C-alpha cells in the first residue's frame, strides 16, 4: 500500500471541502453554538445568579451525580460547584455529538458522490488500490471531525477556565478524564461511525440515500457515544480506558469490514460481482 496515495486522496477531498463554503459554514456555526455560545450563556448565568433559592435547587440536582463525581467537584460556593459540574460533566457529550455529525455528513457523500459525479470512473482506472482510496476517504472524513474536536475542545477549555476558574481557585480544565475522553474515547467512536457510514456510501445508489441512511446510523451511534462518554466522566479514568479500548476494537473490526465494501465496480456504478 502506498501511503502517499492515501494522503493524496485525502488531501484532494479536503481541498474540495475547503472550497465548499456552503458546507463548512453551517458546520462552523454548529461547532460554535455547542462549544462556545451555549456554554457561555449557561455558565455566565450560573456564576452570576444571586437568587439563593435557585442556587440551592441547582446544588440539589448535583446529588444525582455518582459520589465519586460529587467528591471531585471543586468550589466553595453553591454557584461555583454548579458551574464546575456543568463545565466538566454536562457538556462532555457535546464533544462527541458535534464531530460525529460533521464527519458523518462528509463521509456519507464521499464514495457515492464520486460515483454520482462520474469521477469514480477516474479513480477506478487509476493505479490507486481500493484500500488506498478507502483509507484516503476515511482520513478526509475523520479530519473535519477531529479538527472540530481539537479546536472546539481548545476554545471550550479557555472559555470555562475564564468563566468558572476564578470561582474554583484557578484554571482547572481539562481534567484528566477529559484528556482521556478526547484522546482515547472520542476518536474510536468517530472511526466506528465512519466505518459504517463509508460502507453505506459505497453501497447505496445516491448521495441523498447515503445521507438518509447515515442519519439512521449516526443517531444511535451518537446516543451510545453520549452515554459512554458521560459514564466515563462520572466513573473515573479506569472506566474511560476500558470504554475506549472496546471502542477501538469495534472501530478496527468495522474498518476492516468497511474496506472490503469499496470495489472498482462500485466506483463505476455498475452492478457488482455476484
Amino acid at each position, binding site marked *: 500500500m502506498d501511503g502517499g*496515495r492515501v494522503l493524496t486522496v485525502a488531501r*484532494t477531498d479536503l481541498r474540495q471541502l475547503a472550497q465548499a463554503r456552503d458546507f463548512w459554514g453551517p458546520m462552523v456555526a454548529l461547532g460554535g453554538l455547542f462549544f462556545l455560545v451555549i456554554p457561555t450563556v449557561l455558565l455566565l448565568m450560573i456564576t452570576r445568579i444571586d437568587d439563593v433559592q435557585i442556587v440551592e435547587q441547582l446544588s440539589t440536582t448535583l446529588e444525582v451525580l455518582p459520589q465519586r463525581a460529587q467528591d471531585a467537584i471543586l468550589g466553595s460556593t453553591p454557584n461555583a460547584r454548579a458551574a464546575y459540574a456543568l463545565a466538566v460533566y454536562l457538556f462532555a457529550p457535546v464533544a462527541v455529538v458535534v464531530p460525529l455529525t460533521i464527519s458523518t455528513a462528509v463521509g456519507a457523500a464521499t464514495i457515492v458522490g464520486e460515483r454520482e*459525479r462520474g469521477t469514480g470512473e*477516474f479513480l477506478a*482506472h487509476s493505479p490507486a488500490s481500493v484500500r488506498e482510496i478507502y483509507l484516503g476517504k476515511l482520513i478526509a472524513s475523520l479530519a473535519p471531525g477531529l479538527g472540530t474536536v481539537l479546536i472546539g475542545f481548545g476554545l471550550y477549555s479557555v472559555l470555562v477556565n475564564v468563566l468558572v476558574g476564578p470561582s474554583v481557585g484557578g484554571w482547572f480544565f481539562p481534567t484528566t478524564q477529559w484528556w482521556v475522553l478526547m484522546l482515547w474515547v472520542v476518536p474510536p467512536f468517530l472511526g466506528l461511525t465512519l466505518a459504517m457510514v463509508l460502507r453505506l456510501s459505497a453501497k447505496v445508489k445516491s448521495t441523498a440515500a447515503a445521507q438518509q*441512511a447515515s442519519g439512521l446510523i449516526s443517531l444511535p451511534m451518537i446516543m451510545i457515544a453520549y452515554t459512554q462518554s458521560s459514564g466515563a466522566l462520572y466513573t473515573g479514568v479506569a472506566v474511560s480506558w476500558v470504554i475506549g479500548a472496546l471502542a477501538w476494537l469495534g472501530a478496527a473490526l468495522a474498518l476492516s469490514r468497511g474496506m472490503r465494501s469499496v470495489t472498482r*465496480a462500485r466506483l463505476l456504478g455498475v452492478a457488482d460481482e455476484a
Partner: protein
Amino acid sequence: MSSPTIEAGSTTPLPTREPVVALAGVHRSFGTNPALAGLDLVVPAGTITVLLGPNGAGKTTAARVVTGALAPDRGTVRVFGLDPAVDGESVRRRCGVVSAKPALYDRLSGRDNLAYSAELYGLGRGADATDRIEAAAARFGIVHALAQQVGGYSTGMKTRLALARSVLHRPDLLLFDEPTSGLDPESSHAVLELIREMPATGATVIMCTHLLLEAEGLADQVVVLDQGRDRVAGSPGELARRFWPAAVVRIDAEDRAGLRRALAADPRVAAVDDGDEPALPLTVSVDDHGRIPDLVFALTAAGVRVTRVEPFTPSLEDLYFAVRDGWAGDAVPVDETPLFEGKLSSGNRLGRRFGDPFSASPAGRR
C-alpha cells in the same frame, strides 16, 4: 456532402508486433444482462483501434476490462502481457483513460485536477510534475484556464482537460470512450486531430465510438462490436476488400440502353447493378481499379457518350452497414445497455441534513 471514404493509407497491413492488448473469449455480465459475450480483441502496439458499435454493444465495458477496472466473468485478458486482475496497478499506471463523461472534479481548478492525477500516477508534486502539467495543458490549449474552477469550464474545455490528464504520465495505452461526446463540430475536429497525433509519441490508442465519421480516417484497425461480441475486425482497407472484393465504379451515359449493351459485352465487367432508382447511375463491378480507364475508353470507342464516371471507395459507414446487414439484416439493433433494476429513490426527506459537499452543482449542494 459526400461521406468521407476509407483512406488509401489505411490499407497498410497492421503491424505484427507483440499486441498491447489481447482479449480472448471475455464474458462479463451485469446481473442477467450480458455486456460482453465472448469478446476477442487484439490491439497491436502503436496503432489506433476503433471499437465501433451501437449503444450497449459492450464498448465501454471492454475498455473497463482492459484496465482491470472491471474483472471479466470468464476469458483471458492480457495487457502489456500482464493480467490486469493480478497486476492491476502496473497495467493502470501505463494506461490513460478519457471516459464519455470527463470525470473531473468541478470544485477544483484545472491545475489541481491535473496535479491530483500526477500524484496518483506517481509523478509526485515536484518540478517535473509541474512542468508536465504545464506541457500537457499547453498541448491541449487550456493553459489560460488552469487556475479556474473546472465547474466553470465549457464542455469542450473539460474534454481538453480530460485529454491533458490522460497523457500527463505518458501512458503507453490510451483509451478514449466517446471522446467527442457533447462537443461542437469544431471542438470534435480538434480533439480527433489530437488523438490522431498520439501514435507518433509511441502510444497505442483504443477509441470507443458509435460515430462512424469520427473513426473515418483515424483507425488503423476497426473492430465492430455488437451484443458484446466482435463481429468483424481488421484495417479499414482489409475490411473494404473483404466486403467489396471487386472494384466498383458508377457510370452513366446519355443513352442508358446503349451503355448497358456495351457493358454486357465487355469482358472486364464482372457485374452490373441497375439499382432501384432509374435516375441513378449504374453500379459496375470490375476486377481491378486500374482497368477502369480502359473500360471508359472502350465505352467511348463503342459510341457511348459517357456523362459520369465515379469510382466507388467505400466509407466506414458503408462498411459498418455491410457488416451489420451481414448479421442483422435491416433490423434496428437492440439497445442492450444494462438496466437499473433496483428501487428508485425519490431522494431525501428527513435524513438529508446536508448537501453533497463535493458537488459544485446547486442540485448537489441542495
